[in-house]
């Protein structure tokens, strides 16, 4: 319980809440689009740099197993999500595939929140985790899109191009490379900007995310209860898978909990654009509401503590 409250009473989560409240009272507060996009570029690059620097200190054999485990999660989780959405969610094949693509990918901010929560408990998660975020971002989207026959090669390859050259993946991978090439020491100069200022900038980002999620939540009614339930059912299932995969591949208790949060999260940056282009027939209201309106707040408040608890429990068993 105190874990729960501790998880919520942080500037980052409260800023998200503040955004939701501001939307609810119909305030005209909103981050200008240019600021919002600028901050996301900053955050993704910063995550990449940090992960890259850590990666340069990690021997390949240490990184290999978790990377393969993450890849497997990326291939498996959209399949599970698709099956659940068809069977329990009663979605059409197209909508199910569209939503599954989001759960197959990863929410960067959920990853960050989970890292924070784990560190607050005194655990030391692996430094190379941001590299796993990059690994997890793309394959799930591709796998999910294979469930439906799209109108020919062309739109397929467009979607692939969209994901791979999309801002988020370019920044993450670019940051990882720069971080790995420079190493921790050469990054010292940019640490005040990309390191020390990171969590504050994240607060501003969360504020805007709260405003957007608040809007989505208001529209949630239209999606139907059955769908909303899926937004709460999918995270624990996929998150459990992530935790288990993490522990099995030799990651620490903290790292596995974070991998769980990654697996249990739904992308709202890389996936929506790719899905919109590859599956224009799918209803964006469904996947956006689910990913940002339901699953993201669920993970912030309950999911992350759950994954930590799971990781701890499973770790004792094993």
């Amino acid at each position, binding site marked *: 319980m105190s874990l729960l409250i501790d998880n919520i009473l942080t500037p980052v989560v409260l800023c998200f809440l503040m955004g939701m409240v501001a939307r609810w009272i119909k305030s005209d507060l909103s981050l200008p*689009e240019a600021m*919002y*996009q600028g901050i996301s570029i900053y955050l993704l690059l910063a995550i990449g740099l940090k992960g890259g620097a850590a990666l340069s200190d990690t021997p390949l054999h240490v990184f290999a197993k978790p990377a393969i485990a993450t890849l497997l999660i990326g291939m498996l989780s959209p399949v599970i999500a698709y099956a659940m959405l068809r069977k329990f969610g009663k979605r059409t094949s197209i909508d199910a595939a569209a939503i599954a693509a989001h759960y197959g990918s990863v929410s960067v901010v959920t990853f960050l929140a989970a890292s924070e929560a784990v560190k607050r408990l005194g655990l030391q998660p692996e430094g190379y985790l941001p590299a796993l975020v990059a690994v997890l971002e793309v394959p799930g989207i591709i796998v999910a899109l294979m469930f439906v026959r799209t109108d020919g090669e062309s739109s397929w390859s467009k979607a692939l191009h969209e994901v791979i050259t999309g*801002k*988020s993946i370019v920044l993450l991978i670019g940051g990882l490379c720069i971080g790995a090439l420079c190493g921790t020491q050469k990054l010292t100069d940019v640490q005040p900007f990309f390191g020390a200022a990171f969590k504050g900038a994240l607060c501003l980002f969360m504020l805007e995310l709260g405003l957007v999620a608040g809007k989505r939540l208001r529209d949630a009614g239209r999606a139907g209860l059955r769908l909303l339930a899926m937004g709460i059912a999918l995270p624990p299932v996929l998150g459990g898978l992530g935790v288990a995969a993490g522990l099995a591949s030799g990651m620490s208790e903290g790292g596995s909990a974070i991998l769980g949060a990654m697996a249990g999260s739904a992308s709202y940056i890389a996936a*929506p*654009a790719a899905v919109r282009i590859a599956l*224009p027939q799918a209803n*964006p209201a469904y996947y956006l509401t689910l990913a940002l309106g339901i699953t993201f707040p669920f993970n912030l408040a309950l999911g992350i503590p759950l994954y930590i608890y799971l990781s701890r429990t499973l770790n004792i068993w094993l």
Partner: protein
Amino acid sequence: MKVRFKKITIVAERVLQEQVVELLKRHQVSGWTAQNVTGEGSRGLRASEWEGSNVQIYTLVPETVADAIMEDIARHYFENWSVVVYSQDVEVLRPDKYQHP
């Protein structure tokens, strides 16, 4: 000397900007102008805030090409996308500037 032309305006989701410009180029337009807009319509679905809101693109073309472009837009986008297209009469100077590039 002023000549009657058509101005064709397309309002579309931001993710479509590149595709729409390509479509226009296939019709050999001599240029296009775009700006970011927001709005509401009967669908109002957009890929995500990360991609930004709508984009409005217009092109000035000879009257003979106008209908073909509008129909092409309609055929490609009306079914699944939030796209609006309309045309207006305009008068331009230097009509030769707007011939095939």
